[in-house]
């Protein structure tokens, strides 16, 4: 029986937990100077204690009847290098608003704060929470996530889930690409794509790519400071400013190209918008760690510490400053839309949940035998299910596993080569488009974007 080709959902790359170091797992936050939640300048003299707090909590739960265990790794030191003790409070409320309740956290060990959130908070669709960790002398405190009540960590409860048990993988039986959209040798000239590294350095290449709804590929060739537009006509190069940091995400619409850059301590990240001719339209600073870009019905958003912030407002293509949302009214405010896809991993399982029209989550619990799950590269809505690309590995092999999941379970699975000779951004290696699944691959000779037809049998 012939299969109808799957219908990609509207272009909307929005995935919880993908990004630099995401909230809920590692939130590196330092507050000094007695200002709650403020980041201390690294070059300024430190006057008070410094705290680091790393929140560890799942994003998806399948069982709302069990208490939710939350832990925070904490470290605290004074300006004179004295050890400071900490106390922690977890503020929690059912999802949907209302006042936060305060739960005192306890120290099972000096470097850990913990608390069990009663299951009563999970009676609805989930809960929101943030923690405040303070030094005992009250000279410093931090919030985790750093946005506190404005950008709390969200734990959602899936309303239904499907178990998927995968057979042991046969490494080495990867699927060959269906077509090649773009191929270029390493280099700097026209028709080439850049890499850096060698010797003892890890080698990095194009950091990410995206597929437009029209099927054009936009490749962020950061080391050559340009964007490559390929497919649907002659290949074009869009030159970016020399100051562009060579690693980040890219998002292309039919009118604009958005590039996000990770930056360092002295400089915030940046988001730039170019027209399709490569002319810089505007450029704004972005919160630290903001790497991932996504397009939603309300505009373009970036992810920072687990929260999405709109960088374009409704009806406008111009970028807005997202570094001081309080001073700018709604500009740069946290995007209230929740991610389409939410994922969590345990040691054995991968949980993938898709939001339905009513706001509930349909989840899949995927287990694999004979291998371990590696990093997640893509999870997008597809038809009435999801398409997931996740690494699988054992001691000798590593590949990417492509899973097409539907309400009834596994619809299709195959593996593709890891193909990362020159490293790219983990979020930037796969996308979906008119030709199916697209992959950015590199080898010792160059980089390419290939496609795989999807829609076959499991």
């Amino acid at each position: 029986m012939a299969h109808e080709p799957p219908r990609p959902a509207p272009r909307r790359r929005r995935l919880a937990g993908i990004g630099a170091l995401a909230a809920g797992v590692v939130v590196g936050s330092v507050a000094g100077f007695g200002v709650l939640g403020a980041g201390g300048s690294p070059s300024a003299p430190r006057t008070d204690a410094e705290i680091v707090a790393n929140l560890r909590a799942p994003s998806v739960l399948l069982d709302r009847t069990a208490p939710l265990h939350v832990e925070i790794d904490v470290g605290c030191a004074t300006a004179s290098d004295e050890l400071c003790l900490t106390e922690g409070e977890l503020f929690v409320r059912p999802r949907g608003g209302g006042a936060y309740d305060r739960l005192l956290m306890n120290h099972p060990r000096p470097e850990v704060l913990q608390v069990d959130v009663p299951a009563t908070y999970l009676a609805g669709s989930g809960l929101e929470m943030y923690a405040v960790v303070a030094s005992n002398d009250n000279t410093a405190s931090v919030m985790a996530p750093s946005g506190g009540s404005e950008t709390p960590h969200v734990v959602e409860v899936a309303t239904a889930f499907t178990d998927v048990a995968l057979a042991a993988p046969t490494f080495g039986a990867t699927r060959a690409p269906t077509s090649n959209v773009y191929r270029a040798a390493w280099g700097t000239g026209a028709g080439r794509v850049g890499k850096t590294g060698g010797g003892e350095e890890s080698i990095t290449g194009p950091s990410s790519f995206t597929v437009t709804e029209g099927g054009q590929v936009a490749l962020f060739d950061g080391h050559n400071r340009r964007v490559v537009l390929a497919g649907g006509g002659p290949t074009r190069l869009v030159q970016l400013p020399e100051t562009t940091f060579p690693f980040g995400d890219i998002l292309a619409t039919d009118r604009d190209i958005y590039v996000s850059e990770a930056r360092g301590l002295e400089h915030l990240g940046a988001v730039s918008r170019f027209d399709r001719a490569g002319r810089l339209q505007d450029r704004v600073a972005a919160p630290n760690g903001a790497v991932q870009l996504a397009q939603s019905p309300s505009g373009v958003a970036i992810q920072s510490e687990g929260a999405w912030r709109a960088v374009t407002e409704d009806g406008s293509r111009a970028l807005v400053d997202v570094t001081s949302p309080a001073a700018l009214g709604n500009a740069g405010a946290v995007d209230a839309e929740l991610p389409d896809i939410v994922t969590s991993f345990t040691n054995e399982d991968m949980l993938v949940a898709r939001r339905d029209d009513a706001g509930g989550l349909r989840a899949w619990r995927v287990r694999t035998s004979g291998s371990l799950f590696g990093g997640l590269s893509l999870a997008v809505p597809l038809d009435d299910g999801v398409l997931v690309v996740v690494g699988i590995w054992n001691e000798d092999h590593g590949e990417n596993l492509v899973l097409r999941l539907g309400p009834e379970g596994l619809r299709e699975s195959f593996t593709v080569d890891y193909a990362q000779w020159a490293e790219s951004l983990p979020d930037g290696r796969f996308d979906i488009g008119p030709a199916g699944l697209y992959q950015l691959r590199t080898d010792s000779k160059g980089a390419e974007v290939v496609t795989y037809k999807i829609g076959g049998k499991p």
Partner: protein
Amino acid sequence: MMQPRDATALLRTFGVGLAVAGLGNPAAPAGAYHTNFQGACNSNGPTLQYISPGYERLVYAIYAVSALGDGYQYGGGCWNNNDIDESPGDPQELTGTRGEGPDCSGLVFKSWHLNPARPRGEQWNYGYMTNVHGPYASFHYQTPGSNDPFFRISKADLMTMDAVAKNGHVALYYGRNYSNNRGIFIESKGEAYGTGMWERDYLTDGAYEGVRRKMK
């Protein structure tokens, strides 16, 4: 027990370092290399450091975090722990530029408190500004000999401050992001990126092997 002074100093650097988690180094102005940062470094030998068994990984982690934000120097091994790359824009893969920061294998050597001239289980402390890289390149970490102070392990058994290594790169394992299952690594990545803490797919990459420092 570990000396209290050691613990507090290391915790301070731990906190500062994590503030830069997930970030790359700032883009460097062109032509600003040859700062001769290493001219301010020293050659002070390592000092024997007593670390209570069980605290080694914490000490290694805090030491490695001290290098975050302090740049990358091919073949290098000294930094001043102020979270600023004092030698931005150095050309790649040149040891003679004398810039700030370790390279990938130099970071592992100093973080692991190694001293190849002395018994393997002992812990040796180098100051941040001690300019030492150690004798091991990434290839050596990937393929340890029986006399080396580290040995290969399964990547499934990685614990904080074990390492993953291939011929070309070595990175220290810190933990895992439970949302996307990627490993979190502390590594000196290259001149453009400096030293940082990033999520990487090294577990899936079959070229990488797990490595662990020998301890008493």
